[in-house]
C-alpha cells in the first residue's frame, strides 16, 4: 500500500546552516505520527518542508506516492493537506459558525457565488454542523471566536481544517502556550479525530507528555537529524533519546 506521506532524505540548508539533514519518514494511512525534539532541533523547518512553506534543498516529499517538492503551500492544501498553525490562525471577529462556514464554502468551491439555492445552503449548513460537532463546538457556534479560550480557538482552527475534508492533517504544536486543562481538551480532540474519525495526522510537538499518550509512532529530531523512530514505548526506552532529549527536558 502506498504510504500517505513519505519523506525521503529531506535536507534544508539556509546558506551554510543545515537546519534539517537527511531526514526520512513514512506515515501510513490512519497513522498518528508525532515529531518531537528539543528547541532548535529543526522541527519547525521540517514542518515547513512538509507543508510547502519552502522546497527542500535535496530529498523528496511524496503525498500518496506523488512528488510534491515544488507544490507551494496553498496548492498542498488543495491536495488534501489540512493544517493548523503554531499561533492560532482564525477569523477573530466572526462567530465560530461563520469561521467554519467560510472554510466549508471555500473548500467546496462556493466562495465566488453571490447567491445560494436551498440545496446548496443545506449542504453547507450540514457540513458546518458536522465539523462543529467533531470539534465539540456546537454549543459555542454563535460566539465570536476571538472571545473564546485558547483551547476552543484551537478547536475552531482544527474545525476549519476539517471543513476542507483533508486526507492528511498537519498540526504545528497544537497545545503551544496552553494550560493543563486546555491541553487535555485539545489532545482529547486529536485522539477522537484519530481513533473515531480515522484521520491520518502528523503533529509537531514540544511537550513530551502530550505525545506519548497520543502517537502511534514518534520521530525524534535533534540538531537537524533523525535521532530515533519507533513506538512511544521504544522511544521511552531508547538510551540515545534519553541522553539527547529526555535528560535535558524539565
Amino acid at each position: 500500500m502506498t504510504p500517505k506521506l513519505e519523506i525521503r532524505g529531506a535536507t534544508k540548508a539556509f546558506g551554510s546552516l543545515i537546519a534539517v539533514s537527511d531526514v526520512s519518514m513514512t506515515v501510513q494511512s490512519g497513522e498518528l505520527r508525532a515529531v518531537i525534539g528539543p528547541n532548535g532541533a529543526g522541527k519547525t523547518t521540517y514542518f515547513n518542508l512538509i507543508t510547502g512553506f519552502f522546497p527542500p534543498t535535496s530529498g523528496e516529499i511524496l503525498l500518496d506516492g506523488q512528488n510534491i517538492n515544488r507544490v507551494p503551500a496553498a496548492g498542498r492544501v488543495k491536495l488534501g493537506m489540512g493544517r493548523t498553525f503554531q499561533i492560532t490562525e482564525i477569523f477573530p471577529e466572526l462567530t465560530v459558525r461563520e469561521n467554519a462556514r467560510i472554510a466549508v464554502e471555500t473548500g467546496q468551491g462556493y466562495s465566488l457565488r453571490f447567491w445560494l439555492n436551498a440545496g446548496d445552503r443545506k449542504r453547507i449548513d450540514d457540513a458546518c454542523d458536522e465539523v462543529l460537532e467533531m470539534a465539540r463546538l456546537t454549543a459555542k457556534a454563535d460566539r465570536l471566536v476571538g472571545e473564546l479560550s485558547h483551547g476552543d480557538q484551537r478547536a475552531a482552527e482544527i474545525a476549519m481544517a476539517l471543513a476542507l475534508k483533508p486526507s492528511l492533517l498537519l498540526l504545528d504544536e497544537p497545545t503551544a502556550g496552553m494550560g493543563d486543562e486546555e491541553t487535555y481538551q485539545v489532545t482529547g480532540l486529536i485522539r477522537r479525530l484519530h481513533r473515531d474519525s480515522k484521520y491520518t495526522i502528523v503533529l509537531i510537538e514540544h511537550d513530551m507528555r502530550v505525545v506519548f499518550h497520543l502517537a502511534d509512532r514518534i520521530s525524534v529530531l535533534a540538531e537537524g537529524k533523525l535521532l530515533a523512530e519507533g513506538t512511544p514505548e521504544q522511544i521511552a526506552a531508547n538510551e540515545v533519546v534519553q541522553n539527547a532529549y529526555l535528560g535535558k527536558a524539565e
Partner: protein
Amino acid sequence: MNALLRHKYATTAIIWALLLTVPAWLPVFGGYTALAGRVLVFGLAAMSFNLLLGFTGIMSFGHAAYFGLGAYGCGLFLKYVSASTPLAMLAGTLLGGIAGTLFGLLLVRRRGVYFAMVTIAFGQVCFYIAYKWDDFTGGYDGLRGFARAALDFGAFKIDIANNSTAFYFFILAVFGGAAVLQALLLKSPFGRSMLAIRENERRARFLGLPIEKHIWLSFSISCFFTALAGSLYALLNNFADPLGLNYIMSGNIVMITVMGGMRAFWGPLIGAVLFVALQDYVSSMTTNWMFFVGLTFVCVVLFFPRGLMGMFQKGART
C-alpha cells in the same frame, strides 16, 4: 444572538421609516429636500466604499475617481447623446465601474499604504483629465449644459426634473435598490470571503481562497456602486464638478465612512448625515467649515473608534 438580530432589524426599520418620511419632517428642522438627496448620494458613495474598507479591510484613497467618473459619464451622456435619465445613469455607472475594474487589475498585488498610494495616483489622473480637457469636460468650470429629464414610462411620467419631492423619492429608490444588493452581497458566500480577507488574509489564503481575485472583484463591485452614486450626484446638481474627482473628495468619502462607523452596514449613511449637516449649517456661518468637519472627525476617531453607529450597537457586527 437573537437580541443582536432584533437590534439589527430594528435599526434597519427605523432608518427606512425616517428615509421614507423625509419630506414630512425635514422642513421642521430647517432642512430642504435636496439636502436629504445629498445625504443619500454621499451615503451611497460611502457605503459602496465601505464594502472595501469595512468589509474587505482594504483602504482606497481614490474613490472620488469612480464617483466623479460616474458623474461625468452621466452628464456627458445627457449632454451629447440622449436626454434619458436612466440611460445616462447606466452610462455613468459603467464608465466609473469599468475604469475601477481595470485599475483594480493593477492594484491587487499591492497592500496597505502602497495600495492606498496607487489609488490616489489613479484618482489624480482622472482629475487632471477632466480638469484640462476644456472642450469636452468643461475643464476647470465643470460640465454644464445638461439637466435631468423626467422619467417617461409611456403611460405616465414622473417629473423628477422640477418636482423636488419626486426627485428625492427617485434617489431613495435607487439608493434602496443598491442597499438591498449590497446587503445580499454581504450575506453571500462571496461576501463572507471578503470578511475572511479582512479578518485574516493568511488564514484565508491557507483555506485555498484566491485572495487577489477576491480583492479585485470586491474593488470592482465597490467602484460600480460608487459610480452609481456619482451619476446621481450629477443629476442632483445638473452639473459635474472636476473637484468631485479630486483626492479631497476621496478624503471626504473616507471621513464620512469612518465617522459613521465602518463596521456597521448603515454607518456610512449616518456619517453622511453628519457630514452634510455640518457642511450645510456651518458653511452658512463660516467659510472655514472644513475645520469643524475635521474637528468632529478627530473627536469621533479618538472617542468612538467604531464610529457613531458603533456607539449604538456595541458588539454588533455584520
